[in-house]
């Protein structure tokens, strides 16, 4: 009986998948162009991350059906990522610290 219910919840027109597929292509192409056109610095950084997160969001929301799931599960899946966020923040700061002590105290480039 669960099966029947699912049909309404999970089946979508094939079009939406093709759409997303196309979008993923486009965004991959954009991020490829970032490299091809050799953008540098903050611009490169922002563009790459934006495209990356957009693609990730599309895959999760549509292909993995997260958009249609109930909040109870969506929240459980996404909140742990804040822990990753903390870890990233700390490690960014840590690696800069390491880098600058090395520059300061050591003969660099050997």
């Amino acid at each position, binding site marked *: *009986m*669960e099966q029947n219910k699912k049909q309404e919840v999970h089946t979508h027109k094939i079009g939406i998948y093709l759409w997303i597929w196309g979008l993923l292509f486009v965004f991959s192409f954009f991020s490829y162009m970032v490299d091809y056109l050799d953008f540098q610095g903050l611009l490169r950084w922002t563009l790459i991350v934006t495209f990356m997160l957009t693609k990730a969001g599309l895959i999760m929301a549509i292909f993995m059906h997260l958009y249609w799931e109930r909040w109870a599960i969506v929240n459980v899946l996404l909140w*742990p990522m804040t*822990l990753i966020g*903390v*870890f990233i923040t*700390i*490690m960014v*700061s*840590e*690696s800069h*610290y*390491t880098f600058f002590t090395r520059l300061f105290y050591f003969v660099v480039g050997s």
Partner: protein
Amino acid sequence: MSDEYKDNKIEAKSADSSSGGYAPPVEHIPAKEAPEQELYHAKSFWTKWVFSQDAKVIGVQYALTATAIGLVGLVLSWGMRLQLGFPETFSFLGPATYYQSVTMHGMIMVIYLLTALFLGGFGNYLIPLMVGARDMVFPYVNMVSYWVFLAAVLVLIASFFVPGGPTGAGWTLYPPQAILPGTPGSEYGIVLMLVSLSMFVIGFTMGGLNYVITVLQARTRGMTMMRMPLTVWGIFTATILALLAFPALFVACIMMTLDSILGTSFFMPDIFTMGEKLKTGGGSPILFQHLFWFFGHPEVYIVALPAFGIVSDLISVHARKNIFGYRMMVWAIVIIGALSFVVWAHHMYVSGMNPYFGFFFATTTLIIAVPTAIKVYNWVLTLWRGNIHLTIPMLFALGFIVTFVNGGITGLFLGNVIIDIPLSDTYFVVAHFHMVMGIAPLMVVFGAIYHWYPLITGRHLNQTLGKIHFWVTFLGAYAIYFPMHYLGFIGVPRRYFEMYDSPYMTSAIGLNQFITIAALIVGFTQILFLYNIFSSVFKGEKSERNPWKANSLEWHTSDYPPTHGNFGKELPVVYRWPYDFSVPGSDKEYIPQDVPPSQVSTAKAEIT
């Protein structure tokens, strides 16, 4: 929601209304959301007892394996203590053997004994029974989980027999020292250790997914999250922590294995050793420490949270009183779990990391003390106005409170970054973590075994032996570790093979010998306990059904002890939380979770 019951003197309802608008009417039985679980029915001896897919059997397998390897850890600790107390007398232990013992002792105790015992052992046995499921959701995966765990243990044991012996890098396995000559077992031992850990993680993940999904998706009708016994909450949260923390260990293991066998430089900076510069270079040893403790700190709560949960149930049942502040207890467990991911670098205050981290991590670390303190208060407030049976599980629970508070409080010293500076890497730390991890959760393990042994075997453990076991273990262990803090104050560093020639040690030789003797006595008492466990299977006093008069579902199965499938034809329906002891106005002293309100004579109790 609980406002509804505000003016009602009994707030029994409170326990399950917190999480929102859903509170089924009193006699309402919700519809089944899913068909019955399909069970695997074993046909032969092998599939029934050895390659078993029954969570209860798997739980016992896990527990026995963990105990066996735990005894190895115990014996290693004797070797260490003999050397520390009587360095001249027991010179058969060289420094290499000593460091190998320390390492294997630490690793075995934390990972292969406590983690496996609490989650694999108690988790497997109790979760399905307590939430009213027939079995874990994926019995087959669950079985594989045990066998992978066993393989991991065997690899660990194998490392004792390879050339160079097991690794002697300390259980923290810090590179570069772990894989450089100058450390015992830096060639084969360390690789086997890393492989074994990786296997443990893989095996554990299979089991852990089962525990989590069983709690989330396989509860019986009426069993809301807020009606689960705290034991389940503790194990459930700990499992989630494990699923999120073990990845960091796994990654660290892979990277170090590559460093060790392929010569990569993930953790290898520019190093000059043995008269030459190594080819490796540019890596960061601190990175390993971050990865390790991103796993390591949650890990210590992985062994603490199940203990918190179980001890709550022991106290409640044996004091015949509902656990005080159930909701706060649940939230405390969840908050501790979440916070435990943002305190990891308190193990690295003196590691040479970016010094400004000290502010952040000291603050988060001390904040954890608040939810923990709430738990402690609620345990003792449960005793208040209870009707305390001083059974053996209760004694162990009391012992747990004393040792845990003692150890937790020394944690506050260490968490406060500036105080950690002189105390880090001294015996103060060793005393802290043995008190809070070596002794406190073990007290709960013992208490839990005395509590659930009748459920598993249908017989009681011998009470006299049990009393001796408790008193010697509790007083003895306290005598080992309380004075040990003061060694740390004097300045005695941990992981010192011996330092009798040092001015810091002169006053403390006697103390060290005392500690060794106490440790040996406590250690040998465990043999009594093991004897008790094995002989009581056959000779123990037969236990009647539900000997402790507990409410939770595991005592109310159709067969006693429970058999495959746990419950009879129909799964039980749950109407209340598991702590309805001494409900006022009721003629029953306790009301099991599956007793419908209509069968309880008073109007008031029906609220649950």
